[in-house]
């Protein structure tokens, strides 16, 4: 599906990500994680051809990205960027533009397009905001509107750059549940996640970046157990387990742990029980 081969890319003044080879797992939720400035967003932008590639390449369905026509690519990949313009269009009209790649003669959106928009607005819980200008929405509402637009595109691959930004805690969890639901519907979701907790709890696969390079990729469990997350983020990870066996993750700073308990034993995360 999406494959990066020895990819080095940036924004025209030297590469930000270096020599990355990675293939998105089909029908899975992949989290791209890493400390600030590690190149997470750049990797995602490279996958849709919005960076200048210095070496290597990106392939979609085995075909180099540059050989894809813009509209055909938009039918395959929907992208939710981290920062956007404050459009003054109504929510409905903006989300409707998610159907732009399907626009054919006589260049009018069809009844089916409008029905798709209504369905996705409902799924995102913002049906009542349909006539409101996007610029007047709160950060969270805007995020939902843009996500609805990405979903309306009907692409099998969804790339999301920090989708939980601007959302409150419960909305963040709802969104992560929604991503799981989309994966269950057969979509491939790749999301840059800032919150390691979300990544560990919801993602099937993980791509760990450090200083623009690929540190490790694999299933979330493999990466957690390898201890590499603790090294890269400089934290101790504690697995908390409730009486039903469900796991949660807690973090503490490595420095604080050292001060309180002496040199931390490196390696596997510590497993704790939740007292109920």
């Amino acid at each position, binding site marked *: 599906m999406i494959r990066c081969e020895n990819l080095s890319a940036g924004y025209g003044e030297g590469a930000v990500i270096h020599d990355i080879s990675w293939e998105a797992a089909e029908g899975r939720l992949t989290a791209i994680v890493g400390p600030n400035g590690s190149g997470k967003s750049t990797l995602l932008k490279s996958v849709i051809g919005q960076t200048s590639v210095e070496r290597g390449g990106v392939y979609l369905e085995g075909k180099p990205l540059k050989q894809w026509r*813009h509209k055909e690519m938009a*039918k395959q990949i929907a992208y939710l960027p981290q920062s*956007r313009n404050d459009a003054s269009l109504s929510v409905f009209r903006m989300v409707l533009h998610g159907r732009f790649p399907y626009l054919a003669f006589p260049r009018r959106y069809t009844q089916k397009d409008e029905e798709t928009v209504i369905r996705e607005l409902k799924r995102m819980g913002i049906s009542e905001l349909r006539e409101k200008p996007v610029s007047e929405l709160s950060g969270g509402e805007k995020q939902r509107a843009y996500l609805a637009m990405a979903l309306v595109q009907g692409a099998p691959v969804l790339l999301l750059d920090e989708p939980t930004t601007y959302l409150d805690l419960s909305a963040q969890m709802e969104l992560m549940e929604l991503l799981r639901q989309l994966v269950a519907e057969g979509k491939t979701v790749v999301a840059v996640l800032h919150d390691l907790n979300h990544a560990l709890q919801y993602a099937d696969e993980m791509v760990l970046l450090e200083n623009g390079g690929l540190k490790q990729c694999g299933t979330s469990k493999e990466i957690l157990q390898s201890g590499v997350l603790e090294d890269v983020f400089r934290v101790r990870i504690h697995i908390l387990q409730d009486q039903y066996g469900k796991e949660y993750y807690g973090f503490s700073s490595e420095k604080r742990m050292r001060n309180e308990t002496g040199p931390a034993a490196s390696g596997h995360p510590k497993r704790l029980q939740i007292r109920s």
Partner: protein
Amino acid sequence: MSRKYAAKGIFLLLLVNLLLCIFYVSAGAVNISPADMFHAFLGDGKAEYQNILVHVRLPRMAACVLTGSGLAVSGAVIQNVLQNPLAGPNIIGVNAGAGLAVVLCSALFPYCYAVVPFAAFAGAFGAMLFIYALARKTGASRMTLIMAGVCVNSLLNAMADAVHILWDDTLTSAYGFRLGGFSSVNGKVLLPAGILILLVTAAVFLLEKELEVLTLGETVASSVGLHTTFFQFLFLLLAAALAGASVSIAGLLGFVGLLAPHISRRIVGEECRFMLPFCALFGAFLVLLCDLLARTVWAPYEMPTGILLSFLGAPFFLHLLLGRSRRRRKKHD
């Protein structure tokens, strides 16, 4: 505004424009009643009225409508593509680029009228490309872009002044051209420029969805499958053609490209399929009204239309600037 109201708004403005056109043609230093006008059109009216209508007022009315809608649509396109509500063809130097080309044309090829609109288009496009390249290269903020535009404007106007001084034959028309107006509409320029404005406006209307998607920003637009670089370039080309053709008819008319899109957005909203036709009609209305006042209030003398438009446009521009800085201050608080 809902679709139904927006469509009604467009229809209403069309009616108002039709009435204004009738009034525009009948009023002037010689008043012609609608009945006399009707007879003159049928060919059984006074020859004097017929001459006034056919050779003076109708071409002038057509020039007002075409220039007004051309500059208004050009402004709307520039604002959408640069995503800068303060950008207008007269503010970022596009009109001045067209003006320099027109002045150069009249100095070097004084009798090649048909070339004038195309030369004006080339001048406008050159200025537009410079501003656009500057915005892309430096990632300049909206305000920096406007200030750069003001600089380009001054430079191009100074170059046009230099041409006037060096070729003193062009000096007689320089003053009127700089102020902008319709007192000396040239039929040989009006015809090609008018056709260009009509064709380009139709092309912009056809591409309204692409223009609207561009307002979502480059990243979102390209993620829904728009070839942003191509369409940005194409729209700037079309906007330059509209501004250039308009300048070649009426000189450096200011502020239509700023006023009309803003007022249109406030009345019918941002959707391009409603905003663009309303904007074209509003631009025509604004210029028709100002020109009507310019030639009737002080009759038999005439005030250049550009002066009246500047009286309206300059305070409006200040209002936009102050509104923006007020909003920014509020945000920081």
